[in-house]
């Protein structure tokens, strides 16, 4: 059964230095508040997993939390590069960042396989791509029925899965609505999980087949109002596309980034 904790306590309890952490939310419901709390607590040597690193991992990488990144598309959507990510990959700043690179289809299947308790995912993937040459986790197997050659990758089973959702009820059951991405999979595949929510309510108001994650499948719930900002929460607030554009200039410059981080994360008591 999920414990309802403060965000500080949830991160302190479940995110250890050196942990493998998947913070998901496909453009929508990105758990920024949780990311900022990880930065504030000075976590180090994390292996960060995320299909689209987005600003949240640009910030964690720039703040020096990450040792390794597993991802499939590392840009600022519709804007351009993630400059902190590029600075780490191209220049080793603030330190060297190991990367392991997949396609979206593969990561989605690897999360699915992780949630399904399997050691591997199988898909029709990477046909003719050079990615298998630079990612030694990609293997190929032969279908025992048809002989077809299919890609196989290890499933994703992080130490901690972190997502943001619209709301939880008082028993810790969580409703995720709208673009649900791989959020359920990130929670179910992980050994521990933290779900931040906009609010805790008496009744989720969910329809029969809504995306609801039961409280007993979650480690900790923390209220984080506007916890997905500057991404968005369907039914609560829109994406701040302007901030995504402004991020380009902030992240392009090491000092500008550090000043932004100081003011908006390190010196901020809680969520921005």
């Amino acid at each position, binding site marked *: 059964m999920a414990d309802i904790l403060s965000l500080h306590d949830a991160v302190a309890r479940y995110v250890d230095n050196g942990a493998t952490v998947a913070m998901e939310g*496909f453009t929508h419901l990105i758990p920024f508040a949780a990311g900022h709390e990880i930065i504030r607590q000075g976590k180090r040597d994390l292996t960060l997993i995320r299909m689209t690193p987005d600003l949240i991992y640009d910030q964690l990488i720039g703040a020096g939390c990450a040792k390794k990144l597993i991802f*499939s598309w590392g840009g600022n*959507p519709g804007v351009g590069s993630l400059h902190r990510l590029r600075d780490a990959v191209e220049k080793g700043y603030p330190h060297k960042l190991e990367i392991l690179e997949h*396609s*979206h*289809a593969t990561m989605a299947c690897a999360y699915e396989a992780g949630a399904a308790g399997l050691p591997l995912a199988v898909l029709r993937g990477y046909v003719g791509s*050079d990615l298998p040459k630079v990612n030694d986790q990609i293997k190929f197997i032969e279908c025992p029925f048809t002989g077809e050659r299919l890609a196989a990758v290890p499933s994703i089973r992080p130490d901690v899965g972190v997502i943001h959702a619209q709301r939880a009820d008082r028993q810790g059951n969580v409703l995720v609505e709208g673009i649900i991405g791989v959020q359920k999979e990130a929670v179910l595949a992980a050994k521990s999980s933290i779900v931040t929510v906009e609010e805790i309510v008496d009744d989720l108001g969910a329809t029969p087949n809504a*995306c609801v994650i039961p409280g007993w499948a979650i480690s900790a719930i923390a209220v984080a109002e506007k916890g997905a900002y500057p991404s968005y929460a369907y039914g609560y607030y829109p*994406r701040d*596309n302007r901030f995504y554009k402004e991020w380009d200039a902030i992240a392009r410059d090491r000092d500008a980034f550090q000043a932004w981080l100081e003011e908006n994360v390190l010196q901020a008591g809680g969520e921005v």
Partner: protein
Amino acid sequence: MSSHYTSSEMMTVTAARALENGMTCFVGIGLPSEAANLARLTHAPDVVLIYESGTLQTKPDVLPLSIGDGELCETALTTVSVPEMFRYWLQGGKVDVGFLGTAQIDRYCNLNTTLIGDYTAPKVRLPGGGGAPEIATNAGEVFITLKHSKRTFVRDVDFVTTLGFGRDGKGRDGVPNIGKGPTRVITDLCVMKPDPETRELVVVSLHPGVSHADVIEATGWEIRFAEAIEATPEPSANELQVLRELKARTDRHHAGE
């Protein structure tokens, strides 16, 4: 070039016209998304647009900035998980055409969105593959749209993120259960198609006011031209109006107005 539309508009309108009404199209963000929505708002009202964020049959009123903007979900028939999107809808063979952009393309239509230079010491690190590697192989066919320049059109891409026809044009030969690959490339200068034999890109249509020399100058290899080269039809007044209104709505929306 005629002065009442830009070369970008010419590219978008031409790309839009490639989509037929009723097709299911897996849409990449940026130029493909612009073209696909223009198609939907003009000649192809029943084109089915699918974005990798899980949004099925979406009808955005403004162009999304990201692949997962709220607009895509709010105007979708339904929204599924990302594993389901890639497994049931793309790999499951429900997509007629994948519409992609790219940072680099070569003469065999291979796409590079990974990096410039060497993988372990990149000169420029690009965003990576995203959905493209499997869109390009699991969709029935692939349309590609991007601006024409020597920087983007290279003889051999630095890295094959996404298969066109491989380093030798034979990359799809004998591979079961994949689509036929790129069938056209639409730029701000021309339309190209792969040669049916060699799979090397051939210019089949030049946009109004564009010369052979313009294309040669903007292409990083000795580009071939079809024998009977066509003139790409100009945008109609309606297409231009719809496109401009769409872009104006989009700009206002993303500026937070």
